[in-house]
């Protein structure tokens, strides 16, 4: 059957299970939009292409499926780039479809022409230029396969207009065969000995820690992780992107480690004798000074990507493979270690160095996030921007479910929160989705409120309005003698902004208004709600490992904060009792 290139594209998208695509039409991608709009795939018009790529990303993180975004050539494509780079850094499966000028004028500086493949080369897992409609089916099939397998990532397909309007015989390729890319190959025999070595190290350890990253979520290995932790009685810390991979209500949970990780967690990492990295990449925000990171520990690193191993921290036992498969093999071999003393030590540290903050006159973001955690029972999908509010969300929201935190870790993309929340809500329509945001971050993509309103999405946006780029202001106070170079934002009335976009708007000025506003927002289900919290402008994120310092030298510790009215904080009212930690 002969079809136009764009129709072949749509046939392939349907076979990949694509149900929604985010983007903006323009000159050269009109044939693609025209073909999609006659199909069952829902087209979501965004206000800006950056919104489209973050929505595809949020959808992918929330569902584990491949997110799809579209843009026209030139400025449309370049506007996608921040979202593509964000997905690349966090290994998110995405296919970006960009329009391109017709093949005969490529390279001629045609109207709205840019070398999209060239611009995106360093931030994509792979990319294709389709010069002939006969290649369309194979390329789309390969692109989705590459995006979701191995270490996932974004793949870009550049579509010159003639490849979408030209006709070709359509046959769907039933299989993919790329000789340079064989991610589903059976692990080599070497791996068996590595898994044995890992099991051996675990059985000998007295002070082990599991350090779980987003790889646990990508490979769907959370059940195996819980089983391993309980079988071998090993406490679990997660990276920012690993949050939700291990339930924080579990007594073995240590929460997040790293720059703004918990004090007791970082102390435990500094003391452990075995660190088992599971689908985590030893990011510099986790390790601090790499030579000092878990310096007493033997290190095991399980990762699907061989190039992640020994990249920043040298490890003793590397295991290359899909995290879920490796954990299953490991579970067969592993014998419980005697960690009872270690668990007691950790329980003691949890009591001695709890998470805390000092009460202030003004509303504090930490309190707001505790209340959101409480109101949603730790079961909402939480998207965030980047900055102080992101760290507070990581600290004070209790994440109990996989794929419940949608946040830009590697690239640290401000403006990610709102569009990512929109994408997540499309992926999980029946669930409660909050965007916890800052006024600085939110304003970078605030125009997407219109997209959320158009589709009557019941997302809730909590803006911690401190009229600053708060994390920048914090660093300026700590490391630049308090000179606030360009970190103060002009006041914006976010309630009016919400209403102008046909969203509900609620302002909160005092502590006693916090919970009623959250409960109120939870009742509004026919449109988006923006809750603007006027928070203290001087609050800092604590504790903190200053850049380049080891994990046992933290700023803003419990000892310091508790001197002046700091009280131990729980993330949720019924949060973990330390007595459960020893597990009997």
């Amino acid at each position, binding site marked *: 059957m002969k079809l136009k290139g764009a129709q072949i594209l749509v046939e392939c998208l349907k076979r990949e299970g694509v149900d929604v695509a985010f983007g903006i039409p323009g000159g050269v991608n009109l044939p693609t939009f025209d073909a999609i709009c006659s199909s069952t795939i829902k087209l979501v018009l965004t206000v800006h292409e950056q919104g489209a790529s973050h929505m595809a990303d949020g959808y992918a993180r929330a569902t584990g499926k491949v997110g799809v975004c579209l843009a026209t050539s030139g400025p449309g494509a370049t506007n996608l780039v921040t979202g593509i780079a964000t997905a690349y850094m966090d290994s998110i499966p995405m296919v970006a479809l960009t329009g391109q000028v017709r093949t005969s004028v490529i390279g001629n500086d045609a109207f709205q022409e840019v070398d999209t493949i060239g611009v995106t080369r360093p931030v994509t897992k792979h990319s294709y230029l389709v010069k002939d409609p006969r290649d369309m089916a194979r390329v789309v099939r390969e692109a989705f396969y590459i995006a979701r397998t191995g270490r996932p990532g974004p793949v870009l397909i550049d579509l010159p207009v003639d490849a979408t309007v030209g006709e070709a015989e359509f046959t769907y390729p039933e299989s993919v065969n790329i000789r*340079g890319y064989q991610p589903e190959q059976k692990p080599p025999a070497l791996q068996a000995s590595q898994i044995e070595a890992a099991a051996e190290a675990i059985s000998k350890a007295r002070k082990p820690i599991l350090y779980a990253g987003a790889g646990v979520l990508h490979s769907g290995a959370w059940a195996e992780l819980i089983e391993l932790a309980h079988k071998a009685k090993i406490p679990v810390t997660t990276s920012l992107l690993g949050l939700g991979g291990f339930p924080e209500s579990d007594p073995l949970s240590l929460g997040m480690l790293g720059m703004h990780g918990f004090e007791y967690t970082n102390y435990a990492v500094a003391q452990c004798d075995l660190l088992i990295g599971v689908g985590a990449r030893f990011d510099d925000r986790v390790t601090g000074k790499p030579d000092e990171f878990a310096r007493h520990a033997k290190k095991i690193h399980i990762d699907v990507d061989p190039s992640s191993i020994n990249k920043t921290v040298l490890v003793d036992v590397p295991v290359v493979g899909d995290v879920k498969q490796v954990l299953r093999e490991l579970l067969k071999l592993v014998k419980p270690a005697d960690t009872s003393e270690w668990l007691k030590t950790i329980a003691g540290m949890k009591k001695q160095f709890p998470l805390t903050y000092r009460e202030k006159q003004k509303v504090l973001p930490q309190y707001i996030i505790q209340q959101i955690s409480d109101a949603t029972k730790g079961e909402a999908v939480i998207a965030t921007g980047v900055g102080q509010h992101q760290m507070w969300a990581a600290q004070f929201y209790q994440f109990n479910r996989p794929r419940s935190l949608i946040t830009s870790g590697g690239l640290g993309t401000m403006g990610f929160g709102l569009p990512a929340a929109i994408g997540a809500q499309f992926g999980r329509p029946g669930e409660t989705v909050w965007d916890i945001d800052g006024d600085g971050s939110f304003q970078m993509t605030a125009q997407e409120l219109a997209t959320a309103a158009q589709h009557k999405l019941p997302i809730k946006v909590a803006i911690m309005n401190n009229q600053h780029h708060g994390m920048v202001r914090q660093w300026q106070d700590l490391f630049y003698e308090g000179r606030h170079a360009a970190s103060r934002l002009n006041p914006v009335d976010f309630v009016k902004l919400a209403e102008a976009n046909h969203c509900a708007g609620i302002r909160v000025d005092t502590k006693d208004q916090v919970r009623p506003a959250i409960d109120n927002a939870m009742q509004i289900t026919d449109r988006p709600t923006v809750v603007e919290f006027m928070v203290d402008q001087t609050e800092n994120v604590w504790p903190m490992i200053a850049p380049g310092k080891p994990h046992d030298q933290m700023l803003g510790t419990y000892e310091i904060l508790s001197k002046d009215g700091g009280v131990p904080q729980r993330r949720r009212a019924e949060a973990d009792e330390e007595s459960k930690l020893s597990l009997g």
Partner: protein
Amino acid sequence: MNAKHTISVLVENHFGVLARISGLISARAFNIDSLTVSTTEDPTISRMTIVVDADTVKLEQVKHQLARLIDVIRVDELREGEFIDRELLLVRVKGGAKAALEQIAQPFGGKVTEAAGSLVVEASGDTKTIDTLVEQLRSHGITQLVRTGRIALEKNGKA
């Protein structure tokens, strides 16, 4: 510690592959000493021979990252003494007698050609041999010099 490394990379013979590979290497701030590409016995596959000056630990990462590229089929680092390498040299010399130049070039298997009134010496050999020849030609006044860069095959290749 920095040292010269020779990497042999088999890649799909597509447009854009060279840009992916050189981009990946240059993004890590490695200097590429030489890079040669040409098709192999299989016209759908090209072989790149890349000589880089790089820190050994970082080079391991780059090899893994190269292998991660979809268009890369195979990456091998060729170890000193375990490969045969050649490059081709062309040198234009200011003047002097052809016979004198031939005397220098012959032990290297080289030839001298007259081209538009000047003399061009050509030779092929491994990098060290070519370096030595260039040194000996210097006193004759080199005006232009070009080398292809290293191509290499493992001594223990498939038959």
